[in-house]
């Protein structure tokens, strides 16, 4: 079963994980990834604005989720992605994968995150020191995605 949720509202990573693990059909492994709004010493930010293309984001994440379910034989996959204004330490994205054995859940969640970063229509704008800047795409993200090509 695939669930894709796009929302402006904050979510609780632990609550989402517990809900995901309920009635897990005898699965042997669950992997949860939570992406947070980074604000490290020396690179602190005040806020993050996430712009998205709603129709395409829903379609792209659904297609990606279906591909991951199929490729790694996942029993259940949930992708939650926020948009709008976010603050440091808030969750941005959560990917949860359930499978019979651990490797499929690890790989499935990893694959979804790597492809999502470069192929799902979201754009980050950071506010730091009162100044707004669009976050540039990183070439390492392209490499991370391309290593899944077969």
């Amino acid at each position, binding site marked *: 079963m695939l669930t894709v949720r796009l929302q402006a509202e904050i979510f609780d990573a632990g609550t989402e994980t517990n809900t995901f693990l309920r009635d897990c059909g005898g699965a042997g492994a669950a992997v949860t990834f939570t992406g947070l709004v980074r604000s490290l010493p020396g690179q602190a930010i005040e806020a993050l604005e996430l*712009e998205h293309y709603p129709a*395409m984001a829903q*379609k792209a994440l659904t297609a990606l989720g279906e591909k991951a379910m199929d490729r790694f034989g996942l029993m259940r996959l949930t992708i939650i992605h926020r948009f709008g204004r976010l603050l440091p330490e808030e969750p941005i994205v959560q990917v949860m994968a359930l499978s019979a054995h651990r490797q499929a859940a690890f790989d499935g969640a990893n694959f979804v995150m790597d492809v999502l970063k*470069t192929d799902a229509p*979201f754009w980050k704008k950071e506010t730091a020191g009162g100044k707004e800047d669009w976050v540039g795409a990183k070439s390492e993200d392209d490499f991370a995605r391309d290593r899944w090509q077969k």
Partner: protein
Amino acid sequence: MKILYFAWLRERLNRGEETIDPPADIATVSDLMDWLAASDEGIDLVFENRDLIRVAVDDELVEHDETIAGAETVAFFPPMTGG
């Protein structure tokens, strides 16, 4: 045909969408970009480095040589930075 712009393209153009009626000989995304750039100085500027422009036709990511025949919506945006 509806055109959408996102992120810094939208900001620099001061609009997120517009409706256009390209001539019949505009066959591909690339043709459409040439035509838009020729008709609008602002678009010409944001399309300056074409390698940085990603395109979706009817909500599907495509290459610049993709056909736009029958397309209802074409979206232009920078490389994506979600997650």
